[in-house]
């Protein structure tokens, strides 16, 4: 299986652990990932105002790149890229007039976009195309005894028409954790916003949210948190520093990408996990469970 892949800005630096672990895990599942040539930043957020067409150029240009690669499916792993690319695509598909304007603005492109690329999140592909059952057959190191709280956040599941799971009670990450042999821990803050980009100008808000979200997961018995968004990962992991400073009773928890858990279970080498990029080191709990 070959997949056209859009990394997005952060998977090449702060979230290299997300990319490296995913590519290694997908290789173990016989999936060949082909990174888009000349991809550009998607803009990270979908424009919510009706008249703001200019910000749809960046996502649509990536869809043109997909066509140039003779593909009609584009996979991304970042929840924010997924949301932005998919929603822009939906707007182009349902508003032919908007699509004409966008194509006119990009008159120097060789390919005119016709709304014919499908934007998919890696989790959808794992569940619907690769299938969880075939992942289960390839596991060499089940995550036995590891209590994993899956945090979904916002952009993976909302608004309802974009998500591939229930907007209020998504379970796909929990299902995957169970397939990998871990114990999935449900907790009430799994779709509560981490504060997202407020982390730049209001880091104290993120400390409050991280305290609530991580403490809630810990109360349910979680030992580690799994995420699918590099911004959630930064807020819930790196902002634990500010959280501990504000809340002396706060007990930290390592935060990993779901792809890192997959990579461990599928026998990838430790260097693909890139633990040096974490603030709270996940190694002690993983060593304790005999997983690394």
């Amino acid at each position, binding site marked *: 299986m070959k997949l056209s892949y859009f990394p997005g800005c952060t998977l090449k630096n702060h979230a290299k652990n997300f990319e490296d672990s995913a590519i290694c895990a997908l290789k173990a599942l016989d999936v060949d990932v082909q990174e888009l040539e000349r991809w550009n930043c998607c803009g990270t957020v979908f424009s919510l105002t009706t008249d703001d067409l200019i910000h749809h150029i960046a996502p649509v240009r990536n869809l043109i790149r997909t066509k140039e690669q003779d593909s009609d499916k584009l996979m991304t792993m970042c929840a924010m890229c997924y949301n932005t690319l998919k929603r822009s695509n939906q707007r182009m598909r349902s508003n032919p007039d908007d699509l004409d304007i966008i194509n006119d603005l990009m008159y120097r492109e060789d390919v005119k976009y016709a709304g014919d690329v499908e934007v998919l999140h890696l989790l959808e592909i794992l569940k619907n195309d690769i299938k969880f059952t075939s992942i289960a057959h390839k596991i060499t190191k089940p995550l036995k005894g590891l209590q994993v709280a899956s945090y979904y956040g916002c952009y993976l599941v909302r608004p309802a028409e974009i998500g591939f799971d229930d907007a209020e009670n998504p379970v796909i990450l929990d299902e995957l954790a169970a397939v990998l042999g871990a114990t999935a821990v449900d907790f009430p803050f799994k779709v509560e916003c981490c*504060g997202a*980009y407020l982390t730049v100008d209001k880091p104290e808000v993120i400390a409050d949210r991280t305290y609530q979200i991580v403490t809630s997961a810990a109360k349910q018995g979680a030992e580690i948190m799994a995420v699918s968004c590099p911004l959630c990962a930064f807020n819930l992991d790196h902002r634990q520093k500010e959280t501990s400073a504000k809340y002396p009773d706060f007990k930290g928890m390592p935060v990993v990408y779901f792809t890192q858990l997959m990579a461990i279970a599928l026998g990838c080498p430790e260097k693909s996990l890139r633990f040096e990029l974490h603030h709270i080191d996940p190694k002690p709990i993983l060593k304790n469970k005999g997983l690394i």
Partner: protein
Amino acid sequence: MRTNLSRHKLLDPFVAKVQELSGQNLLICYQCGKCSAGCPAVHEMDILPNQIIRFAQLGLKDELLASKAIWVCASCMTCNVRCPKGINIAEIIEALRQILLRQREDHVKVEKLDGSERGDVPPIALISNFRKFTS
């Protein structure tokens, strides 16, 4: 808070502008308050999401554009998902931010962020923050 209502405010082009930019019909809101009940940022807000809609219906432009609330909303879409009338409240709040930003009044002053704020956060945070909070 003391608020004066007037026919003048109700007919202010501001009301039509909010509806146009957000693509939402403000008048279908029946003030159930579900958006405010589920909003994770509500304790940071001076005007709550359901009040934002009421204020917008009444043309209370000055109060809305001076509010702190529109800058602590991170467009997490929880209100949109839960609104029984199908109103996209996040889009209404975005319209209010845009009315200010389009006058080139940046909320986040990039040049005033210190080195650690700019250097330590990932690009995804900086780009999304500047997309939402600068013109």
